[in-house]
């Protein structure tokens, strides 16, 4: 097997994870995201097939500042124009998409990719990164919870995907 970065001229080997949307992202969108500098996709392949793929993009988690000195601003924060509240931000990497080929599922590959990401963006990272975020398909939420991820907001409860995060300090 080989783990490589998707390039514009990469010939993508057959892949079917059982989800039309995830398959579609790999074949129709991943190169557009790459060429637009929005996300980089990595491919785990053998001689014949794409075994798994995952896409990274830079992200950040920002929230209203809830510190003591800002209690007043916190109370009136909702009255301020958007972007004018005091806030805190943390650098993050987003796993935009992660798919495992149907024939290779339930072999621990998903966990291996998540664990790879955890170390790659702490011990081997060239810039600071405090969180992993993920745009998780609803069916995958229990998997990410098992990996230590938490839901970021309740606003996407009815959405097809849920935003989740993992605090990298846990392993640092």
């Amino acid at each position, binding site marked *: *097997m*080989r*783990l*490589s*970065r998707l390039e514009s001229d990469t010939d993508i080997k057959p892949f079917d994870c059982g989800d039309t*949307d*995830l398959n*579609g*992202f790999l074949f*129709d*969108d991943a190169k557009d*995201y790459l060429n637009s500098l*929005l*996300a980089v996709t990595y491919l*785990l392949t053998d001689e014949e097939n794409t075994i798994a793929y995952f*896409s990274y*993009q830079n*992200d*950040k*988690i*920002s*929230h*209203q500042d*809830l510190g003591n000195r800002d209690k007043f601003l916190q109370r009136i*924060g*909702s009255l301020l124009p*958007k972007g004018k*509240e005091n*806030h805190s931000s943390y650098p*993050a990497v*987003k796993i*935009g*998409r992660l798919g495992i080929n149907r024939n290779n599922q339930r072999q621990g590959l998903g*966990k*291996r*990719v998540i*664990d*790879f990401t*955890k*170390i*790659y963006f702490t011990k081997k990272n060239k810039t600071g990164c405090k969180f992993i*975020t993920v*745009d998780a398909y609803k069916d995958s939420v229990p998997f990410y919870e098992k990996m230590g991820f*938490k839901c*970021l*907001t*309740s*606003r*996407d409860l009815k*959405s*097809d*995907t849920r*935003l989740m995060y993992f*605090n990298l*300090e*846990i*392993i640092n």
Partner: protein
Amino acid sequence: MAKPIKETPFLRGKDAKKFVEDNKSIQKVSKEELKEINDNYEALKSLADF
């Protein structure tokens, strides 16, 4: 075209409060768990051409 990757929203109100509370105290993973995470990293890294 597949669903676009969702953007991470700015957290306000209850979401912000919950996020701050949940990250106030961090429980580190055990040595055994950390070793497993490192082993999985090394396993994939050994296959990487980057």
